[in-house]
């Protein structure tokens, strides 16, 4: 088991070193997320004001759009010099490699969210500081569920020619339960009279989905990655 964490940690560290040098994924993903928010504002703002209760939806749409972009790019990097093969050649547990890529992606998306969430709050009047603990739990659990499936799909699409278009097509329908939980839970916290028990219920369902998605992904990674 220690081997599992050692390998996963090495993959995370490698991905982080590359990203700290180039900053490409964080910057492009962040800019893309902000653009999504901007487009939304054109669609819904009337007479200079956004309607209430839209912040949660906009936030999660931006996260999922930007997340797909980040997933595609992290695996494009592994494809560039065929390094994904080198990873699979290592005498390590294949699921450990998956776990490493997933954690790396989570850190990247976390960084993006640190800027994106306050920005959405500012532009659409969302009270993010009312229940910081619950909001952070929702963000982490939601991003985890989304990225867990996304990492698996992006990894298996590396070999496929039309991977850039196929990734969102495959990923969005599968991760709908996570998105629903994320949006509903966040909306419960952002609404005029916050509903804490409801948010707690959505967090519980979300965590259940996380457990299912992560287990299933760890389980499928090995057979799906052998050509």
């Amino acid at each position: 088991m220690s081997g599992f964490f050692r390998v996963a940690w090495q993959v995370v560290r490698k991905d982080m070193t590359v990203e700290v040098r180039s900053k490409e994924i964080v910057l492009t993903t962040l800019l893309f997320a902000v653009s999504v928010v901007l487009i939304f504002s054109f669609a819904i703002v009337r007479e200079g004001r956004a309607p209430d209760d839209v912040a949660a939806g906009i936030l999660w749409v931006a996260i999922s759009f930007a997340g797909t972009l980040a997933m595609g790019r992290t695996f494009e990097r592994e494809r560039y010099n065929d390094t994904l093969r080198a990873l699979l050649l290592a005498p390590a547990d294949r699921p450990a490699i998956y776990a490493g890529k997933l954690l790396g992606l989570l850190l990247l998306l976390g960084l993006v969210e640190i800027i994106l969430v306050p920005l959405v709050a500012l532009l659409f009047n969302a009270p993010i500081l009312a229940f910081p603990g619950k909001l952070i739990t929702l963000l982490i659990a939601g991003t985890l569920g989304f990225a867990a499936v996304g990492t698996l799909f992006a990894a298996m699409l590396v070999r496929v020619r039309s991977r850039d278009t196929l990734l969102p097509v495959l990923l969005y329908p599968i991760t709908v339960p996570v998105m629903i939980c994320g949006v509903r839970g966040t909306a419960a916290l952002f609404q005029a009279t916050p509903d804490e028990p409801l948010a707690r219920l959505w967090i519980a369902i979300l965590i259940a989905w996380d457990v299912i998605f992560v287990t299933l992904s760890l389980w499928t990674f090995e057979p799906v990655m052998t050509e």
Partner: protein
Amino acid sequence: MNHLSVVDVARYYGRRKALSQISFTCDAGEIVGLLGPNGAGKSTLLSILATIVTPSRGQVTYGDRAPGESGGAAIRATIGMLGHDLFLYPELTARENLTFFAHLYGVADVAGTVSSALAQANLSDRADDYVSSFSRGMRQRVALERALLHGPQLILLDEPFTGLDQTSTAALVARLRERQQAGCLIVLATHDLDVAEGLLSRAIYLKEGRIVGSDTDSRGLVDRYRRTIRS
């Protein structure tokens, strides 16, 4: 592992036969060359030997082991592969690349292994430069040492001589001979016959996914290759 045997291996992609009816055996201490034009299936065969592609039929056995449900990682630990795309991260330095893979392969003394690998690649003074700033020859040397980090007994090389000048080629040949003396089995795919001449202890000619001939005498390789491939 002192013996590699390939029995009736074939690999199909849809209706395309990348490989069919591939059978050969070789022993430790050999340098086996897979020779053939582009698209002959050399890379696919190397990937199968590396266990990252499973054959559509037939089997490969490594010593007395076959890649089954459980033995995969144990077999992968004895294999070192240098791919055509070099398997290096251009955004990392040579030392970081080697360190990362040394950890991944569970090498015991990571720092020591990496610095001796850098010395072996003759790159100790450029160890902390990004791989993206290296010439093709330097990258190739790092990539080769990366593949040899964990002391593999089976070494697989895909077109290792492409883009190398004469000194680099000579250094690579010397390194391979040294590994051969150490008892490793080396399988390399190439279409550079001039280098292969005199280096290989066994040549296997591939054409359109099939073995069209083989040779255990590497002198006069060029002529026989032309005759075999043309016919």
